[in-house]
């Protein structure tokens, strides 16, 4: 305590000079803000890597025939795009937001386990290298290339694949360890380090969202790690987990994969679903509507999310009973999601809204994710599902779920907290350009994919019948517009870091929460003396 009093400041400190300069600072840092920044930089870098890969795919799909890439390379590109976007971009960015913001939002000085935090991050870059190295080696003519089975890694294709698959398995192990460490840290921090008086039901929704994400990750990642280890055993040690000839079953892999894969959807959604109510409330200048209902909906989504996985497998030939169960239980997810949508809309309803960039992205998420969710109802129908499944309708559907949540939601959160991180307000004109170019590009990319899917175009094909040409041309054009929009984002963030209008402690007029009570930019250590919550 004496130490704290010596500062004479309620927040902030004089430790700034303690850390080492240069690269060592970043390697050895245990500061939640440093680690958060590294997660964010890593995540958005991977967004560009995964995005560049899919733009090559869209270029190839611009017209029928094989023009730029051969099928072997095409399969690597779509596989890496999926794995990178989910494990390399979306999860690290969410973890970065949590690292930077959680301690500030719950009035803690740092994460509970700072060294674990450092380790959790530094596992990521080697994992990303492990995942992509075979790809670059393959391009240079060394080895068979990267994993090429689709991100679903279906056995026995993944048993047959080249050693890029082994690299992917080890990368998944490392990514899994990283996200489990991050999740443990979040849970421990939230349960132990809240400011005095902040009961669980007074905690910011962002913390609730991320708590559920962490619980889900700890439930599913070990299962997935076990699953890929079984693939590794089948590949090299003569086991037959997924080989019928030895008493195994290829469909077992699908169950293991989707037991991870479906909750993963909510792993990506819940941090965003937790962050955006703060944005809605801030720019509508109105309190969050239905706080408790939203918290319980997060729990319901996490709970239901764990028992619906086989709706990804309606064509695999399950029994009638299983199909009926997975169809009806999948429909049940529409209830907690409807509660969330209702609360979000009720939050802005009769507010005093203004449409700054974070709000635009949050509203874009609301509308586009709404369509993603509604088309999910179509896919839940076990009899109609085979017509959508593994066709472009499915691709369009899950991009309407993923892009608005993982990308637009993350960008809404980044734009919202950017003044707190940099001390500068962002450039609104650039922000609005970014938003509109992204929304237009996104819809031009994915609306045609609904139609081309209904017409019968399967996914993951490098070449297609001529009747699908027009829609694919439009879709590819949209993809490049969408890709370009992200350059505006990077430029805008860069400009905001470099300078801009000074941001006050409370950068947005309607913003509420502990993070807006500290200076902008936030001091290196926040809340050494915990604030008291009434």
């Amino acid at each position, binding site marked *: 305590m004496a130490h704290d009093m010596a500062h004479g400041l309620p927040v902030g400190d004089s430790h700034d000079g303690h850390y080492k300069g240069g690269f060592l600072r970043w390697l050895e840092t245990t500061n939640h803000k440093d680690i958060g920044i590294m997660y964010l930089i890593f995540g958005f870098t991977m967004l560009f890597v995964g995005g560049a890969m899919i733009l090559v795919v869209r270029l190839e799909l611009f017209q*029928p*025939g*094989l023009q730029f890439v051969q*099928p072997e390379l095409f*399969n690597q590109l779509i596989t890496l795009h999926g794995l990178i976007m989910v494990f390399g971009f979306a999860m690290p960015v969410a973890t970065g937001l949590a690292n930077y913001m959680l301690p500030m939002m719950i009035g803690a000085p740092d994460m509970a386990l700072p060294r674990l935090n450092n380790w959790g991050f530094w596992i990521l870059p080697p994992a990303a290298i492990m995942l992509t190295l075979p790809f670059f080696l393959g391009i240079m003519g060394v080895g068979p290339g990267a994993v090429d*089975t*689709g991100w679903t890694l*279906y056995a026995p*294709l993944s048993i*047959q694949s080249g050693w890029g698959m082994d690299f992917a398995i080890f990368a998944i192990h490392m990514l899994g360890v990283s996200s489990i460490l991050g999740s443990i840290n979040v849970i421990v921090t939230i349960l132990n380090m809240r400011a005095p008086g902040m009961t669980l039901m007074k905690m910011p929704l962002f913390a609730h969202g991320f708590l559920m994400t962490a619980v889900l990750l700890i439930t599913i990642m070990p299962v997935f790690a076990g699953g890929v280890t079984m693939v590794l055993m089948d590949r090299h040690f003569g086991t037959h987990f997924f*080989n*019928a*000839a*030895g008493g195994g*079953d*290829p469909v077992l892999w699908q169950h293991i994969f989707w037991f991870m894969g479906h909750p993963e959807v909510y792993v990506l959604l819940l941090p965003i679903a937790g962050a955006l109510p703060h944005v809605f409330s801030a720019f*509508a*200048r*109105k*309190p969050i*509507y*239905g706080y408790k209902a939203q918290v319980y909906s997060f729990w319901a989504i996490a709970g239901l999310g764990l028992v619906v996985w086989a709706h990804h497998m309606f*064509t*695999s*030939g399950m029994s*009638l009973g299983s*199909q009926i169960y997975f169809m*009806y239980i999948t*429909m049940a997810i529409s209830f907690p999601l409807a509660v969330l*949508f209702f609360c979000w*809309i009720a939050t802005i309803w009769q*507010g*005093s*809204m*203004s*449409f700054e960039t974070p709000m635009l992205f949050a*509203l874009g998420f609301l509308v586009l994710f709404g369509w993603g969710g509604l088309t999910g*109802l179509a896919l839940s*129908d*076990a*009899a*109609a599902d*085979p*017509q959508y499944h*593994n066709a472009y309708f499915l691709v369009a559907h899950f991009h309407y779920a993923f892009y608005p949540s993982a990308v637009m939601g993350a960008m809404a959160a980044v734009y919202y907290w950017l003044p707190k991180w940099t001390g500068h307000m962002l450039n609104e004109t650039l922000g609005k350009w970014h938003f*509109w170019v992204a929304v237009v590009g996104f819809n031009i990319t994915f609306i045609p994919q609904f*139609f081309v899917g*209904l*017409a*019968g175009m*399967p*996914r*993951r*094909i490098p*070449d*297609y*019948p*001529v*009747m699908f040409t*027009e829609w694919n041309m439009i879709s590819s054009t949209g993809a490049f517009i969408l890709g370009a929009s992200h350059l505006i984002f990077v430029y805008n963030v860069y400009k905001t870091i470099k300078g801009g209008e000074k941001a006050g402690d409370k950068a947005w007029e309607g913003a509420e929460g502990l993070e807006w009570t500290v200076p902008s930019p936030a001091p290196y250590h926040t809340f050494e003396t915990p604030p008291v919550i009434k």
Partner: protein
Amino acid sequence: MRSMYKFGLGIWLVLGSAAALAGYAFNFPEPVTPIARETLHMHNLVMVVILIMFFLVLGALIYSFRTHRKGAGYKAAAYSGPGNRKQWLWVLSPFFVLAFIDYVVFGIPAYHAVVMYEDTKTDAELVVKVTGSQWLWQYDFPAEGVSFTSRLSTPRDQIDAGAAKGEHYLLEVDNPLVLPVGKKIRFITTSNDVIHSWWVPAFGVKRDAVPGFLREFWATVEKTGTYRGQCSELCGKEHGFMPVVVNVVSQEEFTKWLASKKAAATPAVPTAAVEPVTQAVVAKAQ
């Protein structure tokens, strides 16, 4: 802001009219089996309902954006939850509407459709075994002893060298499957290597071909014609190049075709296809 909205609207109008003019496909191909008809019906029903829900909510949002604006001088309300009985009704009513839509409007027809989809055991007049293989389909008529393979017949230079593409580019095979019209056919799928998936959009059926296991589905094609589809489970390098082509013909033509196939069938059934499991075991042992 306003000009941006107009810009966006303009883009949609241009795109929409261009699409309508070029005769783009917006829905499933014409259904030719009971399952496909049922599926199209379900699809249309779901689409209409979710489009209505989407635009109702979007409309409410747009109203809110225009009215509840700081720029328009609107003063924010302060509520953070339902306050009285009437508001509770407002809050709970969407729940009941949604439950009705999920489990009655969608749930009941979907239940019947799934039961119909899985009705593979009754009244089948013909059994066809479909075996996926990297990268071709093999068709067997077990009762007739007829077996043949069906692989892509599109010339390589159309794919790689930019030669003019034919009408059925990537959707043409050397030996199409021939089926009689109006007969309930029980399909049995399996695979020799990895998982494939047999799909003909006009039939409304898609079923995985899983190595070492048998899966089944059925179709009664009600109209003669040639129907095309593709493998729809990533199965390796040539996944995009293993189409399905089915000629549906009258019973007489089918009988004739089957007889000609039988005559041509010197016992050329590839052993690998008949006994995938044994073969795999042998391969493993070697």
